[in-house]
């Protein structure tokens, strides 16, 4: 199994931390990973992204990702200003944070599997602010089955959260997993 995953978010939502937690969970399941954050003058609200490559064997290339299998977008308004689908492979997966209905979300033909989660709604209830990273990791596990919720919860325990407590993030991840609607290829057809 070799997969490339790109996480899009805004500065402050924890996209880069999410990529580290996901990397930890994959390693705990015996996989090899490389997670590389995009870099710029990061600041709260600015678009950020992180690349993650996962494989059954050691990964040597320390490069960005240009042809992702899966895009996770942890902010509902980001697709208006960033081409989150750039390079997405045909048969790809989109995991999107949004309160809209699936048919209200434009997505290219390359998206085969579509996971949708009202992450901001959940985040406002749990944290009182739109920090969506843990929720969207739960949504990713539910949408793709590439990693188990248990491994993600274990990885969460070891993460260093600045803005919220572990208990809140545990609840956030569980709700993200439970409250994600998945449109798989069969269902779409």
């Amino acid at each position: 199994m070799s997969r490339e995953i790109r996480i899009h978010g805004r500065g402050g939502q924890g996209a880069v931390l999410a990529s580290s937690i996901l990397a930890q969970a994959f390693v705990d399941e015996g996989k090899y990973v490389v997670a590389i954050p995009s870099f710029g003058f990061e600041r709260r609200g600015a678009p950020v992204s992180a690349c993650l490559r996962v494989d059954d064997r050691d990964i040597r290339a320390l490069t960005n990702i240009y042809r992702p299998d899966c895009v996770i977008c942890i902010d509902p308004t980001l697709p208006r200003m960033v081409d989150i689908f750039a390079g997405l492979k045909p048969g790809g997966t989109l995991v999107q944070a949004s309160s809209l209905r699936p048919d209200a979300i434009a997505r290219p033909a390359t998206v085969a599997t579509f996971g949708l989660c009202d992450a901001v709604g959940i985040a406002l209830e749990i944290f009182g602010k739109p920090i969506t990273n843990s929720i969207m990791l739960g949504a990713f596990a539910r949408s793709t089955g590439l990693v188990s919720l248990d491994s993600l919860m274990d990885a969460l325990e070891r993460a260093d959260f600045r803005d919220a407590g572990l208990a809140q993030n545990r609840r956030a991840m569980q709700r993200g997993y439970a409250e994600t609607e998945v449109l798989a290829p069969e269902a779409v057809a």
Partner: protein
Amino acid sequence: MNNMSRIAVCDGNEAAAIGVKLSRPDVVAVYPITPQSSLVEYLSKFIAEGTLDAELMNLEGEHSVLSALQGACLAGARTYTATCGPGLAFMFEPYIRTPGLRLPMVASLVNRDMLSPQCVWGGQQDVMTVRDAGWIHMFCESAQEVLDTVIMAYRIAEHPEVMLPVNVNHDGNYLSYGVTRVEIPEQPAVDAFLGPKNVNWHTPLDPDRPMAVDPLTGGADAEGAAVFAAYRQSQCRGMQAALRVIADVHAEWAAAFGRRYAPLVEEYRLDGADIAIVTIGSMSGAAKDAVDAARERGIVAGVIRIKTFRPFPVEAFVHAAAKVRALGVVDRSVSFGWNCGPVAQEVLGALYRTGRTIPVLSFIGGLAGADLTEEHFDQVIDGTLRALEAGPSPATPETNWLNARAEGAGR
């Protein structure tokens, strides 16, 4: 492998900090600078939480950082710092004095491109600018190699026949922030590997055994000139001795921890190769992937990765280069005076010793945070093959700029 280790998931900066912690330095002096900052934040955290028992000095700038460490090192302390780019430039005066003082420091350079124009991202212009300051320079490919090399660096620096400072280089951004699986050796195994601490045995600031340090020498008088020359010769002997010590220490590391790295020059798939890509640092993984894919297409290429750049491993490099008929050298920095990459220029110098004239192409890429992908290395392979077909030319071939705008596009 006879050692237990645990698996961590961390980036290159954290891997370096863990390597430092396991090496038990006595004094750590720091000034933060992108992309090194998180490395020294990890060290500050280790010291604050008590898992590293070291004196931490947060100083007002890099010049003070290295000056403070000189005093600490002269007093017999094991020392560490990390910097890069403009921080290294500000450190230059004490930096260039350190090898002559024969101080066995270890310092990480989290390689960053140099100003101007303004840039805060990875590139090797910082280290290449100081390549002849007298420090030993090793370059790492992975976070695991960063951790392991930081520990090995203390054995190399403190070896009685070397007694020179070591820079462990790891590329800013891709390696400093790239998160991967890393094995962390157990402390007792590292303690056994490093042995009893006996830092700077020759010139301690010891009140019971006073000794003059850094004497005024040189001048036109014959005796002064000879004394100065003797110091320089001694530094050169230390550098040359380091080649053997680096090899020995890497062999011991492999025996103790089961991870084997080429100490000087790595030969990757040179068997039957027509050409090789010469790499340095974190670009090497993508180059190896490109070579594997090229071989599937029937193109017989390999990689020569330079791990130790100072002292330059002439013999090891010539041994590798003798197996191929053309080289494409990829630099993440610029030698302005030679209008090519600095590693390419060094390769030409080493090849003179072979008596063979083979095509050598210089490729410059990955500047200021630019990515060097498998596709870039495909270009390197194609260009080098074309040069091989054309045969060696006395004219200097044009330098190839990867990541540059296509001819005639935009401005």
